[in-house]
């Protein structure tokens, strides 16, 4: 291993290719940096802030920051995991997350990450936002109650499907939301199809396939078999 292209991640030497982000290099080395809006297929979004690390003592998003020689990156420290737990709690109270009855329970990255980081309660008062569901499409329904505004469906629809079905719009906690590309605002009035990449990208339970509810029972789902940290690091 060349001395030049490495940085330290929690004291361990990690090789990188110039141009890689800290997240990409860590991922390639099988190391887990918690994340929600980052996905290896798409360009980094940098919004969930779960991947916040400390680089030479300064906070930064590991999904957007390029790796560089001489970086001393702190990742799974108590300080950072405490912050991540708070960020997760903020995401839980911002939306309406009813894990016990959610079709995505056990396959949900938000839930899995919360388990991984030992989040025991939502801590903050819930906001209980009013977020209507959209069942207009024949094959897919949208339950925006679970949306964490990660924009993965936006990227998938634009870059993989070339369709622009989803766009992030509006401002602030009360305004920011996924906007559907039709005058009615309904998914059924777009060219969205169940086979689109965007149909299977949602890390939480917003984009749900109709007529396949609970095909795999609770207890036998993705994150029931292995924790999110292990599965995400192996992606």
């Amino acid at each position, binding site marked *: 291993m060349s001395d030049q292209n490495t940085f330290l991640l929690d004291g361990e030497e990690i090789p990188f290719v110039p141009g890689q982000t800290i997240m990409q290099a860590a991922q390639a080395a099988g190391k887990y940096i918690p994340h929600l809006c980052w996905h290896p297929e798409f360009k*980094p979004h*940098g*919004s*969930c*802030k*779960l991947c*916040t690390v400390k680089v030479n003592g300064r*906070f930064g*998003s590991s999904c*957007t920051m390029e790796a560089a020689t001489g970086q001393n990156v702190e990742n799974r420290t108590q300080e950072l995991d405490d*912050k991540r737990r*708070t*960020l997760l709690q*903020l*995401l839980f*109270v*911002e939306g309406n997350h009813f894990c016990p009855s959610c079709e995505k329970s056990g396959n949900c990255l938000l839930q899995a990450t919360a388990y991984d980081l030992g989040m025991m309660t939502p801590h*903050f*008062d819930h*906001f209980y936002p009013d977020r209507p569901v959209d069942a207009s499409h024949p094959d897919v329904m949208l339950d925006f109650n679970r949306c964490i*505004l990660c924009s993965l469906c936006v990227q998938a629809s634009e870059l993989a499907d070339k369709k*622009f*079905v*989803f*766009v*992030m*719009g*509006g*401002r*602030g*906690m*009360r*305004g*920011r939301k996924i*906007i*559907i*590309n*039709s*005058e*009615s*605002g309904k998914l059924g009035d777009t060219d969205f199809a169940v086979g689109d990449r965007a149909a299977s990208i949602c890390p939480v339970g917003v984009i749900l396939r109709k007529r396949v509810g609970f095909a795999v029972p609770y207890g036998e789902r993705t994150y029931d078999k292995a924790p999110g940290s292990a599965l995400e690091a192996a992606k």
Partner: protein
Amino acid sequence: MKEDDAILAVLARHGNDGSRLMQILRETQEALGWLAPETITAIARGVNWPRAKVEGTAAFYSFFHTRPRGKYCVLWSDNITDRMLGNRDLMQAMCAKLWLEPGRLSEDGLVSVNTTSCTGMCDQGPALLVNYRAVTRMDMARVEQMAELIRNQVPVEQWPAEWFRVEDNIRRKDALLDHGLVPGEALAAAMERGPAGLIDEIKASGLRGRGGAGFSTGMKWEFCRNAPGNGDQPAHYVVCNADEGEPGTFKDRVLLTSHADLVFEGMTLAGYAIGAQKGLMYLRGEYRYMKDALEAVLARRRDDRLLGKRILDKDFDFDIEIHFGAGAYVCGEESALIESLEGKPGRPRIRPPFPVTHGYLNQPTTVNNVETLAAACLVARHGGAWYARLGTAKSAGTKLLSVSGDVERPGIYEYPFGVTVRQVLDDAGATGCVQGVQVSGPSGVTLSADELDRRICFEDIPTAGAFMVFDCTRDMFEVARNFAHFFAHESCGFCTPCRVGTQVVARLMDKLATGHGSQYDIDEMFKMHRLMQGASHCGLGNSACNPLFDTLNKFRPAYERRLKSLEYEPAFDLDAALSQARQMTGRDDAGAHLENAE
């Protein structure tokens, strides 16, 4: 059909260019009143963008209406200085006269009354916008007259002109406001030196950005000049940041009202220095009323060969265009501003790359504050060494302060850097005893009475120019609560810590305000401060808790006297939960109230 024609006319005026979406949406709304779903569809078709992208932009900005807004839209400026001048009572009175609830459109679709973030009239408040025209010095008599005019459906154009008068209130002049330059003088001097020579002078002057961050202007221009253009149509751009959204700041308004030539000439200098042919001024939507006057100045400068082709008969082409924002504080952040200039929601970009290499339309762009560009004219005319002698060692030059609040003479004060806070207070005639001063707006610093000998300069207190004074009768907790709600309203919503954190903080402040707070809630606020300061995507989230942090540390009793206990108290209030039922039944007698269990 008439509506379609109006939309097509606007689209044609902007060459069906989606990057001009902000201007297209504003002009369409000015023509049609609001942006109906079919209007957005027509615009999307016209600019050949996905419809959802157009709607995404329209939904981001406070001044774009995707629901009917009424023939009269009244927005009360809600900065703390407006509150201190009694805006809440006046708005309540207006709503009562119009049989309205704030934020709701009247049953007949005639009028809506609501609040908006600071409109930059703090020295002549309480202020408001009516159909996006600025009104100053509101009082009860004007409220009554205005309600009458609205009820009688008198067009705003026929309202008393006096209401729309905006004063400069220049109280102290120094090198900048006393510049004595005639249009073209600084530009001619710069052209003698050539672009590289001009950049050398700017560097030698020590001029730093006046938006608050204080980056070296000469370095910024040099980086931008040296950056190669990108793609098929390489170009360099000058952007003047006239978004002036920081509550309590109004110096750019005065510069653009009375010294517009100086600002436009500064932009031209920047264009000459970096090799740009186009400059864009991003002016906040609240200053829409300045449009005609500013366009007239630009036209005169074109006639005088100070803009356009072969400026001053030299081999230099440059022109300036004015773009308007639409009510979004975050667009003051330079990369969010550029996104907005490109027709998108004002979401700060991931940096690096920085605008000097990848800015407007992905081209090298220098973004400078209004005041910085004006000051650059002084340097171009008198030289860097002359300018560097003004101010302090690390803060060359002078600074405009927008002074408001509890002073006898609110307005614009220009000082060489290094002036003490006390000096400003004395000159402005601080009334009674000073309790605190908010310097550089909510994202700045709250000073207590024992810090008045601190100095305005980059070495001590850097500032974008806001200077709000609070005397001993003011409640510093309410100051901080006003700021907390401001940030919650203005957060762009992109990153988790700022989007949800600003809302959590605003709710904690409300909990304290209603007497349900405890030490636990104060600890929670410190926790949110630590989270948001490190993890947020941009300066808005990073500084959103500054006023809380400062007031909690320096004005602790203002918080503690509100605490119900020193341990935990729930926010839930049994009696308050019944308020909706009381409203529906019209009851407010003793039997309609529940005592909270103690």
